[in-house]
């Protein structure tokens, strides 16, 4: 198990560097540059910019300079937000995305696991049908529809919550609900499917035959196997949530990382793009590793050599 973890951890670094290299290549292929705007720059100004950022050097020199900085963990300064380092921007905005993301995921887990489990236990009941239809609705209702709808009802109809911006507990209620809807729906459906399969398996029949009461069967044996699909979903889902969710951040004007990431691409802000991509790829690989480790605890049949 330990050697497995170490092997996986060691591979993360070269993988992240590969991802950075590919991203760097893609940025270079994309037309346009960070300094161009609607107004034309005098030739002298453009030349000064290119010189300052080393854009007048051959590409391999630029690549080498970039890589040697990144290996040392320094992504440099943002080209658009001058005087701010990439590391500082990520560090500053991650907590916003993480707060919203983790809360939304916890809420989604609470709703999804409960609804999914009950739906599986009472298959084909009214609860099953209604909760699964709601889940279908949750899946198909995009954030940019649900968010404004919640604003309309709770900010302008009932005046319970502010319509947008960060500030206090009440300001994150609507974004968290908006964000969690789709995940809750997905988790409910995964849990239901997983539980249905597990409840019919032999080891559950054995547990029941041993005379265990239904609650113990459910919590000690069935749930552990039933939520494995949810666990594999959790890795990438959490990574995506931590990195920010553009739509919710836009609708509620939150200073999260997702919006900054999208804008960095639109601005051709190379250091910031590379920094966020590297951060994201490492995050995803770590969460996937965590998921793989969790499998071992949840399902005794899975063992790592």
């Amino acid at each position: 198990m330990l050697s497995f973890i170490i092997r996986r951890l060691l591979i993360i670094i070269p993988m992240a560097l590969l991802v950075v290299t590919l991203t760097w290549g893609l940025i270079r292929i994309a037309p346009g540059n960070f300094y161009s705007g609607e107004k034309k720059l005098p030739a002298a100004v453009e030349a000064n910019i290119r010189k300052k950022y080393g854009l007048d050097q051959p590409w391999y020199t630029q690549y080498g300079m970039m890589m040697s900085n990144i290996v040392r963990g320094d992504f440099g300064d943002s080209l658009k937000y001058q005087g701010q380092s990439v590391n500082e921007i990520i560090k500053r905005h991650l907590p916003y995305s993480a707060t919203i993301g983790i809360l939304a995921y916890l809420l989604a887990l609470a709703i999804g696991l409960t609804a999914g489990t009950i739906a599986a236990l009472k298959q084909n009941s009214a609860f099953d049908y209604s909760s699964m239809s709601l889940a279908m609705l949750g899946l198909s209702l995009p954030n940019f529809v649900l968010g404004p709808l919640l604003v309309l009802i709770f900010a302008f109809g009932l005046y319970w919550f502010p319509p947008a911006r960060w500030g206090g507990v009440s300001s994150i209620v609507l974004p968290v609900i908006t964000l969690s809807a789709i995940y809750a729906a997905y988790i409910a459906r995964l849990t239901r499917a997983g539980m249905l399969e597990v409840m019919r398996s032999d080891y559950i029949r054995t547990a029941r035959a041993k005379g265990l009461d239904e609650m113990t069967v459910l919590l000690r044996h069935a749930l552990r196997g039933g939520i494995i699909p949810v666990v594999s979903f959790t890795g990438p889902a959490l990574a995506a949530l931590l990195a920010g969710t553009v739509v919710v951040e836009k609708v509620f004007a939150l200073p999260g990382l997702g919006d900054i990431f999208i804008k960095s691409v639109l601005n051709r802000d190379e250091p910031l793009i590379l920094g966020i991509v590297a951060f994201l790829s490492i995050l995803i690989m770590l969460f996937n590793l965590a998921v793989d480790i969790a499998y071992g605890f949840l399902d005794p049949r899975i063992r790592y050599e």
Partner: protein
Amino acid sequence: MAKTRPKPLRSALIAVIFASLLTGCMSSAKSKYFGRTSPPAENVLRYVSGSEPETLDPQLPDGQPEARIFMALYEGLVEYGPKDQQPIPSIAKSWEISSKVDEFIFHLRDNAKWSDGKPITAQDFVYSLRRGFAPETISRTAGLGYAIKYSSEFNGEKVFVKKNGRFLTAADIDGTPAKDVPAFGPDTEFNRTLRGPDRITLEGDEKKRSKELESDAKLKAAVEGGEFVPVKAEDIGVEAIDDRTLRISLRQSAPYFLGLLAHQFFRLVPRQAIEAHGKEWTRPANIVTCGAFRIKEYRPYDKLVVERDPNYWDAANVHLDRIEFYPVEELSTIMNLYKAGSVDAFLNHTVPTSWIDEVRQYKDEYLNFPEAATAYYSMNMTKAPFSDSKVRRAFMLGLDRQALSDFRKITKPLFGKVPSGIYPEYDKAVEKVGEELRKERGVTPETWAKRNDFDAEAARKLLTDAGFPVVKSDSGYSCPNFPTDRISITFNTNENNRSVAEFIQSQWKQNLGITVPLKTMEFKTYLPYFKSLQYEGFAQFLWSGDYMDPYTFLSLQYGKDNEGGAGFYDAKYDKMLNDANAELDPDKRYEMLARAEFYLMDQLPFVPLTINATNWLKKPYVKGMYPNPGTLIPWKFVYIERDQAKWDKDVENIFKTPDPQMEKQLSDLTATQKAAAK
């Protein structure tokens, strides 16, 4: 018909939702104001400023969202007037302008201070301008100041040529003797050098320089054996005559220059903070400012809070205690914040089209005035068939721009290069010159008035004359010869741009029988595509004026490598503009500029589309805030009115409605310059 009875719980839920939706709608329909309207408890203005500021260094960015924040934090020699954006005294209490409008002397007030308490002197302006033009500063707006002598040469790292102990001048090349120009203001050694004949400058880069010399034998011969001396910061035409007197010398007359000086590029930057903290000088802990407000709190992407600076020279006349700038870009979100009463005003161009019909009912809040901003479709004149002026004219005449404006709801149709209704004096000049031209050309007043109007018949005839016959069939017109497979309307991806393009596409199809395909691309991809003339047919071009003079629009087609993006270059047009700018009588200059505009409209490198509108909202209790042509708000005039009887009413007349407090403040400020002018 039988209906299923709703279950109690469900019906209760439905009732709550509907009731809440209904109350939401009803309250907005019945109320006089849009959403919650009550002044904030403190003297605070909460303002949505658009995108997150790139930096708090005023010399670097070129965006308007930043410009508005800089107007709170920094001052320059002059400030934009609250109503008309014309320059009013700021740190300079008065100024004198040379008769050729190429030298300016500014008298600074003696009580101006930085936020750290240090007095502001003329040397601070010299430092700021030198820094702005320094190549390593990489200011993107430095080009605005290129009228200052030797500034573009310093910015472009050029060199002077020194030979036999003196600098070579233009006189050494063409032999014209230097004229003796009398001094304007105190006669200093530095000023004598600037007044003297223009020095020759060459490329600083050796390769480029030898190329430059190869192409000009006379120049090469004159330079031979000379020494190359880099143009330095100390060479540019900015001089502190004493602590309170600043002189700026230009390379040529520039009547628009004073209006330009309120731009962020010309605002003061703090030498003490920049030298102490380097690129980190703009952080809240390090920053030193000189405007009416100083930084209180900065949380990027969330808010920037500024508070009244007690060190500010005019602090007694700053009415707001704080301004909170919120960087929000999503239009519906901004509308929600405003409706909920969480913000008091927001930036221009922000009410989404789908909200306009509702919002324009709130006559005490909705500000829709013409802007110094226009939309065009550039036509690539370097590629056939748009190299033919008949074709270009046909497409302009074949488009009903009034209908386009009505469709856009907030814009006005544009019929020339310069937007009308922004520069009243220039509009008069256009009328006068137009009348002269009409008589010269022997056209009836009716025909002349409609010369650029929508005229589908004339457009079809022009196309037919140009070799693309338009034929009428049962289903309308068609123009089978026209190469629609090659051309397109290209624009950057954006909902508004698309709807405009679709509207124009359908107009041309209906009126000319030509279906021009649409092509859309992401902004940063679009820019090089447009600027390097890769497009064929039409490309969208939006332009906001940089200063309050029609030249900011007319100069778009000036010079070989101009910004117009149509491949247009006409030496005659350039000469007309140069001559106009050398004219010292402002009325006459406007007439010469108007003549140039008529000339340009005959060439027609673009289809004029619309004049933008300000299109923003402010709560009626926010006073002293005006929808001027650039939505550039001098914040010290803004105040919160708590007496509801004095709230703004019918803001359509906001410019005519008297506001004694604001007017007194303005006239006290301008009095120093008026007294000096006498």
